[in-house]
């Protein structure tokens, strides 16, 4: 009898419309969006799989994505259906069986990787294309409902990030900041595709912040919006991380702090107007995009409840901000190899070490241009109070030259860095205390030069990690001890997710060219 009830209940929920109510729920049975939930903590309340039984986790199904390579896409799960994308393509799968329900292939397809995921709202799924269209498809059949262009391919823009949807607004960003293309973040109407507002990450003359760019350097300045941000429903603010300035390695032609590159900006959802910003690396010359996903945490700080924003930055420092005001609360160095700054001021500004910037002959700078962490997703576990992220310990020899900006999407980096010959490069999953930045534990990854995939934490006391070398591992969130691992046999570049259907918890991730979903071994 119980079985019947479950089946009927399951079937009847399949066409439930996805709205504000669902997207605001804590992360549990579904995985509705790229970062799991609006707070981007990638922490699920599911705990059927836990530290005591994770050793029994086995593959439940595998779906091969034809022609995929090194997928960076995070699947979403809604109403029993999993949606996974790669550039120009979406596959809808039965999330219990991995069987395909529909697929969509865009024609014509401009081949520019990657695509990092889709979003869902109402009865539609949405994704962006390499030629800057937002495509809305019927979630049940994959029929295209409309396409809406939001940036210019001819100028060089493309759009790799998964959209974020809030209250019927689809928030989409652009790349590439390394080509002198100024960042734009746009909100499109989820029903019609109409552009409602656009935030320009590089202020124009007459706008506050333009004075932080010397001469005309603001015109080809970067500051792109190539990863998905976060949202606070109470404050109605979007928190979006902004990429590096162009040319990346030669700051001589763009003297000043170069706002709002290397910042997190807080934008009013309804208008796109900026409420505050915080810049992690003023006048960056090491390509340290600050796109690391801002995690929104409500917790006591200095004895009173506070709305916090936690962010471990590519520049090697960990930051805690008050997300109502943007006020800097705490900062600490997490990268051991760090020589470009001696610390942070009480306002959170880096105290730069003189001459630690790219030079004609080459300067050894730590961290290197990959950064002390990068775009791969962090996680926060309220149970332990720890922030987890992937950290790289490495240095580069960085040099600069002069390069002329060419419109149309050509590289505008003015050189780069090579691995420092006298330094090793090592990759870690690292846990730090959310409030103090105090080091708690770390677990080394096999791949020393590639970040690999992101992290997921669960109420089962676990942190899941996707190593570039192919090992998918589960660790004890308290200690970092490895409790389970599975060799996927493929490069891992994407973040894992978890979901539950018919009372069964699954853990899934994009692995190279396949999607793999795991569950506890079931004798049946």
């Amino acid at each position: 009898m119980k079985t019947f009830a479950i089946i009927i209940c399951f079937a009847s929920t399949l066409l439930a419309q996805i709205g504000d109510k669902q997207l605001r729920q804590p992360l549990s049975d579904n995985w509705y969006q790229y970062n799991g939930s609006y707070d981007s903590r990638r922490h699920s309340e599911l705990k059927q799989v836990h530290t005591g039984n994770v050793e029994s986790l086995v593959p439940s199904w595998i779906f091969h994505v034809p022609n995929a390579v090194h997928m960076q896409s995070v699947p979403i799960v809604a109403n029993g259906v999993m949606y996974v994308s790669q550039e120009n393509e979406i596959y809808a799968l039965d999330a219990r069986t991995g069987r395909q329900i529909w697929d969509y292939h865009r024609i014509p397809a401009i081949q520019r990787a990657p695509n990092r995921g889709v979003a869902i709202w109402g009865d539609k799924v949405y994704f962006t294309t390499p030629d800057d269209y937002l495509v809305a498809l019927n979630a049940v059949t994959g029929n295209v409902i409309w396409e809406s262009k939001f940036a210019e391919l001819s100028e060089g823009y493309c759009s790799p990030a998964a959209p974020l949807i809030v209250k019927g607004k689809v928030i989409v960003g652009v790349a590439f900041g390394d080509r002198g293309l100024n960042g734009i973040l746009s909100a499109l109407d989820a029903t019609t595709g109409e552009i409602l507002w656009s935030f320009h990450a590089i202020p124009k003359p007459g706008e506050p912040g333009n004075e932080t760019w010397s001469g005309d350097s603001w015109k080809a300045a970067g500051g792109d919006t190539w990863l998905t941000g976060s949202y606070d429903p109470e404050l109605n603010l979007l928190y979006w991380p902004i990429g590096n300035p162009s040319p990346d390695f030669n700051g001589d032609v763009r003297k000043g702090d170069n706002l709002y590159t290397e910042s997190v900006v807080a934008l009013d959802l309804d208008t796109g107007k900026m409420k505050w910003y915080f810049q992690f690396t003023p006048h960056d010359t090491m390509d340290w995009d600050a796109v690391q996903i801002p995690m929104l945490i409500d917790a006591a700080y200095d004895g009173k409840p506070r709305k916090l924003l936690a962010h471990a930055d590519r520049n090697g420092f960990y930051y805690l901000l008050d997300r109502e005001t943007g006020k800097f609360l705490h900062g600490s160095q997490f990268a051991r190899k760090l020589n470009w700054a001696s610390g942070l001021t009480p306002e959170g500004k880096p105290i730069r070490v003189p001459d630690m910037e790219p030079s004609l002959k080459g300067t050894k700078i730590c961290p290197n241009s990959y950064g002390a962490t990068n775009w791969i997703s962090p996680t926060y576990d309220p149970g332990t109070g720890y922030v987890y992220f992937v950290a790289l310990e490495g240095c580069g020899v960085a040099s600069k030259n002069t390069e002329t900006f060419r419109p149309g999407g050509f590289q505008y980096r003015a050189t780069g860095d090579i691995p420092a010959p006298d330094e090793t490069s090592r990759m870690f999953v690292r846990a730090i205390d959310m409030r103090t930045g105090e080091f708690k534990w770390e677990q080394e990854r096999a791949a020393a030069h590639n970040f690999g995939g992101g992290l997921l934490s669960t109420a089962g006391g676990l942190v899941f990690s996707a190593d570039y070398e192919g090992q998918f591992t589960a660790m004890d969130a308290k200690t970092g001890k490895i409790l389970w691992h599975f060799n996927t046999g493929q490069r891992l570049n994407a973040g894992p997710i978890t979901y539950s259907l018919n009372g069964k918890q699954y853990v899934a991730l994009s692995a190279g060219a396949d999607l793999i979903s795991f569950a506890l071994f079931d004798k049946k």
Partner: protein
Amino acid sequence: MGRDRSILLVFWVLGLCLASAAQVVKPKNPLGNGLEVVAEGHTLYNKTCTACHGRDGTQGDRAPALGAARRYFRLSEAAIFDAIKNGIPGTAMPASGLQDTEIWRIVAYIRNIRSTASDNDVPGDIQNGTRIYQGKGGCASCHMIRGQGGLIGPDLSSVGAQLTLDQIKASLTQSAPPQAGFVPVRVTTLKGEVIKGVAKNEDAFSIAVLDMQGKLHLFTKEELRNVAHEPESLMPRNLDKTLTPAEFQDLIAMLSRQARTKVRREQQGENEVGR
């Protein structure tokens, strides 16, 4: 300085050459590709070309069948015109000796037997065809075009670019087995609930059913008492009888113009000789 100038001149001349090369316009069929021209071309083709290429372009003992489902070296109107007028050097294909107007008619016919419906100027009242589609024909209750319509049948937003005119006509008039993703099924749950729809996917252990109300049901076979398949597609195949000839033609004209996604002919080798 003098050397710099001559280098500049070389670049200028080179640029001019490249610019004019880019502006070369391949000749288009001056007679168009209307059905009348195609019919005249068909007659001419069967008089002139069949000794080698076979009747109606369907088979050839001595030369390729020009209307078969194969990949062709010559796709554009200009390339086909050139082959008929001048022959293909190094092959048995001779220069035809036909007048240019006759050649263009044959070009229209060859393009027609290879082309999708949207490549042809199918006659008919498109506005009335839309009314038939939405009303008397009953198409919109199952099919979607540009976001409007039902979900149970295939999306028709690009049907004119995907099917030939003959295939569109056949899909409205001739019975055929259902295509994958649209196989009609009737499943019975363990509790006895009956769900009727189409199978989006099925294997030995699971089935995804889109019911007639557009609701998706995902089952493992353990959750079902019975799965019954229907041999025929849900698509009515008698529209040539339920509609008047004029209404039927208007519907065909409307459907042939649905080409939201046009496959780029250049990507298929348009204007290329040999690949």
